[in-house]
């Protein structure tokens, strides 16, 4: 049985906790506190340590889903959780003040996960803010991570089917990366 550890990262209010909730087959573990930083995101609670959920893929592959806090002051949790992860679902809310800048910041912080397995980008809340369009995200990804295959989706974090599509795309990338590494090792 294979196990994958996938991180869900992105700015505060992008829908990381909701995405894990809509994907997980177990009752999720949440570490939320009253949000006192209403200027950054107008919501009642915020994740201060991690979210955790699990989903089974195929017959028996277990995927462990970890959500990290969105605020930089919790970046020690990013470091801890990044070590075990082989892939990243990066959620960016399209109604953020500058979503492309958020994309940049999180790719800079978590971009190394592409080499470990893969990254997908999910643009959320595009029903609230129609722009920037997906091509802007794709263009920026090509600029900051040239030559890397990073799929970009629009997704509603509340929609399990949409999140599953993004997750499956990531897992396919992770398995392909592992196969390539394996064949290179055997050839060497």
């Amino acid at each position, binding site marked *: 049985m294979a196990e994958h550890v996938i991180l869900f990262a992105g700015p505060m209010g992008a829908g990381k906790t909701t995405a894990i909730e809509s994907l997980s087959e177990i009752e999720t*573990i*949440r*570490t939320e*506190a*009253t949000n*006192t930083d209403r200027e950054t995101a107008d919501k009642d609670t915020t994740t*201060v340590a991690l979210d955790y959920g699990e989903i089974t893929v195929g017959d028996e592959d277990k995927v462990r889903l970890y959500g990290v*806090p969105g605020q930089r002051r919790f970046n020690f949790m990013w470091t801890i959780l990044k070590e075990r992860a082989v892939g990243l679902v990066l959620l960016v809310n399209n109604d953020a003040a500058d979503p492309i800048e958020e994309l940049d910041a999180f790719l800079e912080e978590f971009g190394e996960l592409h080499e470990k397995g893969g990254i997908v980008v999910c643009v959320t809340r595009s029903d609230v803010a129609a722009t920037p369009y997906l091509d802007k995200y794709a263009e920026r990804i090509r600029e900051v991570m040239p030559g890397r295959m990073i799929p970009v989706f629009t997704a509603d974090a509340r929609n399990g089917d949409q999140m599953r599509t993004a997750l499956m795309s990531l897992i396919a990338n992770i398995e392909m990366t592992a196969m390539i590494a394996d064949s290179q090792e055997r050839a060497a």
Partner: protein
Amino acid sequence: MTEQVGAQPVSAHKDPVVIAFANEVLDGFSDVCRSLRYATFLTDDGFEVASIAGDEKQNRRVASMASSMQALGDAVAKDLRIGGAEYIIIAAETGYVIQMRVPEHAMVLAAHFDAAETVGKALSVARLAASNMRTLVQEKAA
């Protein structure tokens, strides 16, 4: 902890009165406990309200880490269905850290003691400091 001022909620870490209370409590705390190396009051979501000792960067970092620890403690307690986590102790080689929730408020005290102190005494003074903070904040609200 968030209090209403007119229509705008003011968080504890931005409220000068609450910050003054926190400083007052921390000063008293260090007077009664010589083994105290560092202490900070923080909001549940990881903002420093006030600290004694430590530099600004360290204070902010400890507030964030203590917030995560408290939330993880609460998550474990919730999963085991044993209620909320009142306090957390981290015992290390040369000292320990006690985190104590300010009762009925979204605020936590994190305090670092050296190994000279007994856990019982440290716990007792930390509980007293958290309780004093609750009293001051409640008196202000009343």
